[in-house]
């Protein structure tokens, strides 16, 4: 396989917790991201799913270098970008752009759409020389399916879906290779979500983009992703192709997560088997020892509290069940295996 465009190695982001007013001392840390590794290849979409507090948005911020990593590496085409600053960082950021969740707060209400989409050119004038900018912005508007004549309008004159298109146009402006989408459609109405997802897929084909697609909606992630990683409390618990994760999940958390998603089809709803997890996600400031999921897991044994399971391919059979899973007792759920 070709060299990955983005490679993350043992990435850690801890937010220190302090106590005392005059003499601050560190009393602990919120372990938002705690040792994550994965690769992203050219033209690929990697979906990242997990519940709130699992660290998926922190991961995005660290990749963009909006937050400094505590340790670990982020390799862009083999070069570690997690320690860069100044001009070198600016140059790299041209190639990695971001689309944010909330199209209402991520656009400056006092700037016109043309200024918003054209702002990246101010920082990277080499992409579009001053005279050509208006034309470049209009082209971008056209690419994302907005009328190029809207260039002088303000964000409040657009609906949620249109605003998200503006955010996407801004992300595309510098012709990046990687786009990190943090919950790009979760603020949109159902009928508009599909439009934006189709647009993202079309753009990926046209510009050979690599996406990291962060979302909590598992159905959307399956639809758009080639590979999917599942996060829980700062760690990746399972990663594999969409089929491996959705049809042959071996980690109990993934299985519970999948079974909790309501299926938009009432047929057979009485007989549907659900794993209802008890309790809530523990605090990332004080995660359980060993496997972090053990406090809510029905398979947990003594070993889980002492030994941290590593993300590795378990020794089970052949075929799609064989993919990286961080569980001592990784196995395909029986009724699931029978059904497929």
């Amino acid at each position, binding site marked *: 396989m070709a060299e990955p465009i983005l490679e993350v190695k043992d990435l850690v982001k801890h937010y220190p917790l302090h106590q005392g007013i005059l003499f601050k001392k560190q009393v602990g840390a919120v372990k938002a991201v705690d040792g994550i590794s994965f690769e992203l290849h050219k033209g690929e979409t990697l979906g990242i799913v997990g519940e709130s507090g699992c660290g998926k948005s922190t991961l995005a911020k660290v990749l963009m270098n909006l937050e400094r990593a505590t340790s670990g590496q982020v390799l862009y085409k083999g070069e570690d970008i997690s320690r860069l600053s100044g001009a070198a960082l600016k140059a790299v950021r041209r190639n990695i752009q971001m689309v944010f969740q909330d199209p209402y707060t991520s656009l400056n209400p006092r700037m016109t759409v043309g200024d918003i989409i054209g702002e990246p050119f101010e920082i990277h004038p080499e992409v579009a020389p001053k005279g050509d900018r208006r034309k470049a912005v209009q082209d971008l508007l056209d690419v994302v399916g907005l009328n190029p004549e809207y260039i002088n309008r303000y964000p409040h004159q657009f*609906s949620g879906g249109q605003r998200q298109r503006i955010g996407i146009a801004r992300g595309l402006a510098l012709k990046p290779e990687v786009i990190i989408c943090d919950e790009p459609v979760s603020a949109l109405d159902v009928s508009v979500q599909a439009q934006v997802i189709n647009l993202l897929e079309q753009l990926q084909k046209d510009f050979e983009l690599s996406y990291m697609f962060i979302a909590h909606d598992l159905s959307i992630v399956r639809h758009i992703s080639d590979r999917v990683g599942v996060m829980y409390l700062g760690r990746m618990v399972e990663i594999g192709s969409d089929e491996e994760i959705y049809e042959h999940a071996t980690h109990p958390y993934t299985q519970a997560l999948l079974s909790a998603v309501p299926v*938009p089809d009432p047929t057979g709803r009485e007989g549907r088997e659900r794993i209802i997890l008890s309790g809530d996600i523990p605090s990332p400031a004080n995660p359980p020892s060993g496997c972090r999921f053990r406090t809510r897991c029905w398979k947990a044994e003594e070993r889980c509290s002492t030994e941290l399971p590593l993300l590795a391919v378990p020794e089970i059979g052949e075929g799609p069940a064989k993919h990286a899973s961080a569980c001592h007792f990784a196995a395909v759920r029986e009724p699931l295996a029978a059904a497929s």
Partner: protein
Amino acid sequence: MTTVIEKAEPADRLTPGTPLLEVRDLHVEFKTRDGVAKAVNGVNYSVAAGETLAVLGESGSGKSVTAQTIMGILDMPPGRVTAGEILYRGQDMLKMSNEQRRRIRGRKIAMIFQDALSSLNPVLSVGYQLGEMFRVHEGASKKEAKAKAVELMDRVRIPAAAQRVDDYPHQFSGGMRQRIMIAMALALQPDLIIADEPTTALDVTVQAQVMDLLAELQAEYNMGLILITHDLGVVADVADKIAVMYAGRIVETAPVHELYKNPAHPYTKGLLRSIPRLDQKGGDLYAIKGLPPNLYKVPSGCAFNPRCDAATDLCRTEIPALHQVLDKDGAELEGRRSACHLWKETLHG
């Protein structure tokens, strides 16, 4: 205060099947600086004891405004009910005095909101807020009220309820806060609960816990439930019947299985086709073209016509009635209605 405490008598409980609440031709509008926004334009629905009605719609469809009007918590002005009736056990609540409505609100009809954190008072303990229901409505003493609050928290399975009764809302997680909201709604054993997007702010695993709890309590107390949501998955899981809203109107009503199997309105059809499925990987998603309508300028004729692939001249000029849907042999399909001129083609074509 001379409020007479009415105790629910056995005769007060309706037999299953009789409508508990009926909304008839309700119109609500908002007068604002920019003009008059017609949020609800003739909504009809009913819910019986033990039944779950899901009201499905996107933002701006009028689903929440209808619910707020039923509860009598709509801000007036700017809101205004211009026509319609809301019958609770046959009595029009819109004609009642404030005092009469207040006796129904909370005791007979309770509401659960989307955002539990902003619906709870941050400076009062949850035990105090739960106990308030008993103190105000039933004249219970502080001690009794607290004991009942603990009982309720137990009922909605909040662990260590007796220790946590004096905690404040911020000390609970999102799922636990939503349980407290449910406990509060259940406190006086109402016969109807209106849940406005009760799980939208929650994670899927917690959503499953909360929906399970709600369904169980509903069955136990034989309550009617109006579930307001935009989530087609949640609806498929719990609803008995569905009312789909678009631009302040009901565009389709149907029993849950039939709606998903064979929708009779192009909007419903489009919605069902546009959501990605967890259990299958498809190609391109079907996308409904265009944007939801502006409520200040609802399109003439059928409000959905600019986004509809099948729209004809008739659709652009005449507002479709909510037609009774017939099967191929011309027999009425029970509970099925569609506000589409072309419902036959949509359903059978």
